[in-house]
C-alpha cells in the first residue's frame, strides 16, 4: 500500500513550492552535480538527483521510504553548485519534516527518532541535554546498543563532559508557548 496518499503529495508540493525557489525542482536538468558533490550520496538509496526525478514523477513513496533524506548532512554543496538554482538542502528539510510528522520513512533510519526526541527535549527544557537525548533515542530504537555506549559515557562523565542533570532555561514556559504558537501557525 502506498504510504503517501494523493493528499499527502498535494500537501508536500504545497510546502515545497512555499520554500523560496522551491518551484525550481521543476527546472532540474538532471546533470548530477548534486549527487557528485554530496559527501554522503554513496550511502544513499537514491542520490539527490534521483530524489528530484522521483519527486517529479510523483513517486513520493520512493522518496520517503529511502534513507536519503536522513543521510543529508546539510553541507549545502548541492545547493551552492546546482546550475538550476534548486535549494536542495531545503527540499531535504521539507522531506524530513514530512517524514517526522507522518511517521513514515522510519525504515532503518532511526534519524526520525533522533530528530523528534531532540525537538521534544528542547521544547521542554529550552536546550539540549545529551544524556537524556541519547537515553530516549536508544529507548525508542535499540536499548541493547545503549550498553555498548556505556564505557564512553563513563569516560565523558569522568572528564566532566557529561552533566547528569540537565539544565532548564529560565522562562521555559514562555518558550513552550512560543513554540506552540509557531507550530500552530506552521501547520496552517
Amino acid at each position, binding site marked *: 500500500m502506498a504510504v503517501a496518499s494523493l493528499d499527502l503529495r498535494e500537501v508536500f508540493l504545497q510546502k515545497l513550492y512555499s520554500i523560496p525557489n522551491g518551484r525550481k525542482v521543476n527546472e532540474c536538468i*538532471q546533470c548530477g552535480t548534486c*549527487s557528485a*558533490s554530496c559527501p554522503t550520496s554513496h550511502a544513499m538509496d537514491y542520490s539527490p538527483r534521483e530524489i528530484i526525478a522521483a519527486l517529479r514523477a510523483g513517486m513520493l513513496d520512493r522518496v520517503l521510504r529511502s534513507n536519503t533524506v536522513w543521510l543529508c548532512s546539510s553541507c549545502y554543496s548541492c545547493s551552492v553548485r546546482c546550475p538550476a538554482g534548486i535549494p536542495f538542502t531545503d527540499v531535504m528539510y521539507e522531506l524530513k519534516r514530512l517524514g517526522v510528522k507522518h511517521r513514515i520513512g522510519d525504515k532503518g533510519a532511526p534519524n526520525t527518532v533522533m530528530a523528534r526526541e531532540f525537538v521534544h527535549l528542547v521544547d521542554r527544557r529550552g536546550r539540549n541535554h545529551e544524556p537524556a537525548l541519547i537515553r530516549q533515542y536508544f529507548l525508542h530504537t535499540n536499548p541493547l546498543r545503549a550498553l555498548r555506549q556505556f564505557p564512553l559515557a563513563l569516560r565523558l562523565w569522568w572528564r566532566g563532559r557529561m552533566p547528569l542533570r540537565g539544565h532548564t532555561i529560565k522562562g521555559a514556559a514562555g518558550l513552550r508557548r512560543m513554540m506552540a504558537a509557531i507550530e500552530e501557525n506552521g501547520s496552517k
Partner: protein
Amino acid sequence: MIAQDEKIGVYVCHCGTNISGTVDVSAVAEYARTLPGVAIVREYKYMCSEPGQDLIRKDIEELNLTRVVVSSCSPLMHEVTFRKACNDAGLNGFLFQMSNIREQCSWVHDDRERATAKAKQLLAAAVLRVGQQVAMEERIVPVRPETLVIGAGIAGIEAAVRLADAGRKVYLVERLPSIGGHMAQFDKTFPTLDCAACILTPKMVSVGQHPNIELLTYSEVEAITGYVGNFRVRVRRRATSIDPTKCVGCGLCWEKCAVKKVPSEFDAGMSMRTAIYVPFAQAVPNKPVIDREHCLHFTRGKCGICQKTCPADAIDFDIQDEILDLEVGAIIVATGFTLFDAGELARYGYGRLDNVLTALQFERLSHASGPTGGEILTKSGERPGAVAILHCIGSRDENHLKYCSRVCCMYSLKFAHLVREKTHAEVYNFYIDMRAFGKGYEEFYRRVMSEGVHFIRGKAAEVSTVAETPEEEGKLIVVGEDTLLGVTRRIPVDMVILASGMRPAEGTEKLARILSLGCTRDGFYLEKHVKLAPVDSPSDGIFLAGACTGPKDIPDAVAQGAAAAAGALSLIDKGRVIIEPITSEINPEVCAGCQLCIMTCPYTAIHFDSERNVSVITEELCKGCGTCVAGCPSGAARQKSYEDSQIYAEIEGVLA
C-alpha cells in the same frame, strides 16, 4: 472639440473571429455613429485585406473624408498599411488613427459585454484624438554609399567582403592588431575537420588586398552621431609605432626585442610574445605593433633595439593615436564573443591546477603553429594517457550563463577526436545533454562515439588532486555522477579541458552606449526581432552579425555576416530613406537651458546652443521617443503627434 466641417470615417474590423468572437462589433459601430464629426461608419471582416482598404480609399474619394479611424489590431501590425491607404486616396496619413481592440481588448478579455464597452471607449478615444491631429510630411534623405563594419572576426570579414565585392566602400574596424577573430585561433573546425586557418586565411588575405576595403586594425570606434544613411563615426587608430608604408614585415624587430615574457593573447597565454609583435604568422596586416604597456622604450625610456635593427627604418616611437572621422550610410556590428572565465568556478581548478585548460588553450595546444607545434602534451611535456573534457562550464547555469552556448558540445567532440587521433589517450566527455543540431553534427557525434571516446552523462562536479587510491596519485581526478548508472565516478586523468561558454566580447556594453543599442540581460545585443529580423538592430541602418547577438558557430556567423551585408546593401542601393516626422521640438522661448533633456536623450539628438542658452534638437537624429518631453521641467519640449491637446482629447474619449 472637433471642428464643424470635419468628416471622420470609422472602420471597425472583425478580424475573422479574433475581435468579433469577444466584442460585439455591430454595437461598437452603432456607438461610433453617435460620436462627433463621424460621417460614415463601416464594419468589415478583414480591414487589412485589399477590399477592406478599398472601403477606406473609396470613402475618402467619394465622401471627402477629412480624417480616418480604424478600430482593429495593434498599430505595430497595420498602421503603415492604413496610413498608406489614406495617402493613396489623397488624405494625409497622419490624419489617420488606429484603435487597438484586438491585443488590448478582445484577446485579453472574455466577458463579451464588458469587452464591447471597452472597445467603445478605445474607439471614442481614437475619434476624439484624430480630430486634433495635424497633417505632416515624411522626409526623404539621401543615403551614403559607405558601410562601417565593426569587428573583423569571421562574421565581420564575411560582411565586409560581400559589400566590397558588390562595389561598395567598406571601413573595417578591428580592435586587435590583426583581423581573423577567434576563428584564427582554432585548430580544426567541426564537423568536417577542415583546418580553420586553411579556410580562413584566404578570406583574410582578400580583405587585406581588396580595393574597396579600408582596413583599420588596432582601432576602436569612439563615437557615432547621425542617423540612418548619414552616420558620422569617430575612430581612434591606436599608435602602432610602425610606419606601415615602410615596414616590410621582415621580422627582425621582434627577433631582437628585449622583452620576451608577455603572455600571448593569441595563444591564450600558452606561450610568450615580445613587446613588438605580430599576433600570428598569417596576420593581416602582417606588420608588427609595439605594445606600449610592455615595451621598455615606453615603460623605462630605454632600449630602442628594434629601431636600430629595422632595415627599413619603419619604427617611429613618436607616432601618436590618430582620430579619423568617417561618414557612412550603414553600420554592421560584429563584435563577437569572449570565453567565459573558467576561473570563476574554482571547483574545476582552472588557474590553480596544472593541465586544466580552457577550450581556447586546447585549440592552441593542438594547433600546428601553436606552442607545441600541434603536439598534445601536458605541462611536463608528456603525452597524456587520459583526458577529460568537461561540457557546460559556465553555461546552462543559473549562477553564471543562463543560456546554452551552443558550440561547446560540438567543439568538445572535436577535441575528443583530436586527442584520440594524436595521442590515443582515453577520453572522457562529461556532458549533460548532447546538442548536435547542425548539418552533419549528429553524424560527427556518432563518429566520435565509434572512435572509443567515453561519454559520461552527468556534469562534472569538481576536479580534485586528493587521491583516494594508488591509481589516483599524481593525477587530476574528475568527480561526476554518471546519471545513466546512478553512480558517482572518479576518473583520474592527466589533462582536463573545460568547455567554457561564450559571453559577449569585452566592450560590448560600451559600444551599446555609443550606438544606442539594447542588450539582453545576458549582455548580448538585442535584435529587432529575434526570429524575423535577426540581423537588424532596433535602430535603422545598424545591423548585427555573428556572436554579438548570442553564441553562434562558424556557419551561423558567416550566414549572418552575409545577411547583414544584404541588409546594408538594400539600404545603400535604394539611395534614400524616409524619416518619420514624429519628432520632438523645443520651444526656445520657453526653454530655461537646464539641459536635463540633453542628459536624458537616448539618441544624443539634443545639443546646447550656448549663444541663445537653449537646448536644440537635431531633427534627423530625433526618434520621437518623448523622453525629453517627459523630463522637461518647463514644458518647453513638445512631441509632434503627442501634443497635450491630442492626449487630453484621447483621455476625454476614454472617459466618455
